[in-house]
């Protein structure tokens, strides 16, 4: 990790051409160094961060006054930072009989601030929770005293989680967890605090701003979706080809518990929706043996979306994994104990995240956890089933090889599509798709659930959520379209699709469906726009290939001349 001084040096470097993001920082302690650090760290993430730093201790005034500089700035992200030290001062000046309600009152205040912000602006609110510290009054007995500082501090952090789980526009940055990991003596410099109001140490600032930027990045769709694991001396101790399945270190054998823990972590990620892949220099039959019959293996073959064990070079194998999963290299993390393999992958695939690991395997898991590689901004039930969908996709691919005729292949899949508007059931998944889809996404407009809900109530908008089944199973919700009435036709505000269903005729199916809907509403044309990003080159020719013609810098499809293409997907429409 870079030092604060190194981050400061980034501020002099040229960030033009990088994605611009506007962040407002509202703090009740000195935030000047924090702002320097976060801008410097954003540069390393290819973000030109434009920061509005509220005048010292003006959090409430800036938020509540609609004519404030904050409101004029229109930040995409608003960070509220109430320092623990300030909170303690307030606590100590609260009359004793009111202290048991201190956290509740503070939460109500935070909720008011979030409401005031999000009612008037399209901003995502980030709130730093409070790093725990004792006031040295009750000792451990504080845990039995509702009006003690530790009791109210912890209740405040707990209630923040409840508040955030109710509010789609509020994200907690878990400062408490990071400060506990690094330790208070590292995170704070009392002398610096005494002299300046800068409450955290210079060494901790880079750690802290990284946690904030992790949430910003995730919210912008930069999410890690896949963990690729080496096997020998990474998932177990020893070399399976040499030692044999009985002698690899797992469970009680050797340093086995270290590897058990790593596997449990990977499995928990898989349950959250992160795809697991194996990339190992091994004979495939031997390498898969522990997954099938070792009693202490936590991971089983069905947990692994793509299993690659051969003697090819690992960069090529990761390319192969990428082509099956159809996700960006920058959403993949590769964990391997061998520094040489890590170096090769870093060199050949610079976008893949390859964590540097400590020498001792016992230190790996704490190091990997600390890197916070899998920050996210959403979770749906469907995530947990993603591995199964990709495993099915692998068998679909091998099937495809047997069909020379693409149309025959598509017919053989017996696809059934369903179309719905946005409902309370599909809204979380729709929001997640708008936030995550980078490749097949024509305009890359990100929506949260509240914004989508507003669209469903708009008389000028048509919303579509497409799901797909085929003879192999459920794909779930795979495409989203939002149309906006404009003149004599409808403008395609959003058209995105999961890359899992590329080349399945879904685009034509979607077009047939929305063309019908636009006709029903009396529209005569569909207007499309492609907004290029670094990642959506895939759909550069999307509208043209569907028969749209260039028109005033946009794409236009006249419905009078439109002939629906052969449907490979039978439609099942919900009432």
């Amino acid at each position, binding site marked *: 990790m870079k030092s*604060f*001084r190194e981050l*400061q*040096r980034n501020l*002099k470097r040229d960030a033009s051409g990088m994605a611009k993001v506007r962040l407002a920082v509202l703090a009740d302690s*000195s935030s*000047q*160094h924090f702002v320097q650090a976060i801008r410097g760290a954003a540069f390393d993430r290819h973000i030109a961060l434009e920061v509005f730093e509220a005048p010292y201790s003006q959090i409430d005034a800036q938020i509540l006054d609609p004519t404030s500089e904050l409101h004029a700035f229109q930040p995409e992200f608003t960070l509220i930072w109430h320092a623990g030290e300030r909170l303690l001062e307030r606590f100590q000046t609260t009359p004793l009989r009111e202290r048991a309600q201190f956290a509740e009152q503070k939460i109500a205040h935070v909720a008011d601030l979030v409401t005031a912000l999000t009612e008037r602006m399209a901003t995502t609110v980030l709130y730093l929770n409070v790093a725990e510290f004792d006031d040295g009054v009750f000792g451990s007995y504080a845990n039995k005293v509702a009006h003690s500082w530790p009791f109210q501090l912890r209740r405040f952090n707990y209630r923040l989680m409840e508040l955030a789980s109710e509010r789609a526009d509020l994200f907690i940055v878990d400062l408490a967890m990071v400060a506990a990991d690094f330790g208070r003596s590292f995170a704070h*410099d*009392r*002398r*610096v605090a*005494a*002299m*300046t109001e*800068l409450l955290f140490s*210079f060494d901790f600032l880079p750690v802290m701003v990284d946690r904030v930027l992790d949430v910003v990045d995730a919210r912008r769709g930069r999410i890690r979706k896949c963990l690729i694991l080496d096997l020998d001396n990474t998932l177990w101790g020893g070399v399976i080809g040499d030692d044999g399945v009985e002698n690899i270190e797992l469970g009680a054998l050797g340093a086995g518990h270290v590897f058990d823990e790593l596997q449990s972590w990977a499995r928990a990620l898989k349950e959250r929706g992160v795809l697991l892949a194996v990339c190992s220099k091994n004979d495939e039959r031997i390498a898969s043996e522990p997954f099938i019959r070792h009693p202490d293996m936590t991971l089983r073959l069905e947990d692994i979306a793509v299993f690659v064990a051969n003697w090819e070079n690992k960069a090529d194998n990761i390319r192969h994994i990428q082509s099956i999963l159809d996700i960006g290299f920058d959403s993949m993390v590769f964990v391997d104990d061998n520094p040489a393999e890590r170096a090769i992958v870093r060199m050949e695939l610079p976008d893949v995240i390859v964590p540097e690991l400590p020498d001792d395997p016992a230190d790996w898991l704490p190091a990997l956890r600390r890197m916070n590689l899998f920050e996210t901004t959403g979770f749906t039930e469907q995530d947990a089933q993603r591995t199964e969908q990709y495993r099915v996709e692998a068998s679909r691919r091998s099937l495809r090889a047997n069909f020379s005729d693409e149309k025959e292949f598509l017919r053989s899949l017996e696809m059934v599509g369903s179309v719905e508007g946005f409902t309370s059931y599909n809204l979380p998944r729709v929001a997640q798709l708008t936030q995550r889809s980078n490749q097949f996404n024509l305009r890359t407009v990100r929506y949260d659930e509240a914004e989508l809900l507003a669209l469903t109530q708009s008389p000028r908008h048509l919303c579509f959520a497409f799901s797909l089944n085929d003879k192999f199973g459920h794909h779930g919700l795979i495409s989203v379209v939002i149309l906006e009435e404009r003149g004599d036709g409808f403008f395609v505000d959003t058209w995105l699709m999961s890359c899992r269903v590329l080349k399945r005729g879904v685009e034509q199916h979607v077009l047939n469906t929305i063309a019908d809907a636009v006709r029903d509403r009396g529209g005569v044309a569909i207007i499309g726009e492609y907004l290029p990003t670094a990642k959506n080159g895939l759909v550069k020719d999307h509208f043209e290939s569907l028969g749209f013609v260039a028109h005033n810098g946009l794409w236009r499809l006249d419905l009078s001349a439109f002939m629906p293409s052969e449907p490979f997907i039978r439609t099942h429409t919900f009432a």
Partner: protein
Amino acid sequence: MTAETILADVGRIVRDVLDNEDLVVVRSTSAKDVLEWDSLSHVQLVVAVERFFKIRFASSEIVSFSNVGEMCDAIEAKLKSI
């Protein structure tokens, strides 16, 4: 470590932290003379000096330095007492 080498090292740290390569740092240089030298960069500077010389100042010392020379004297005294 002589007074001259301490002054040279402190000068280098001052130029780096204040991000001013052209700054000439002498014993009489003080925060008043340098635009970038405010209370926040002063603290950053002191922490950088402490780390470089592997010493630690008390809070009262940090605010008492009126110029670079006084800081250098304090460093020299601390290094001698180790």
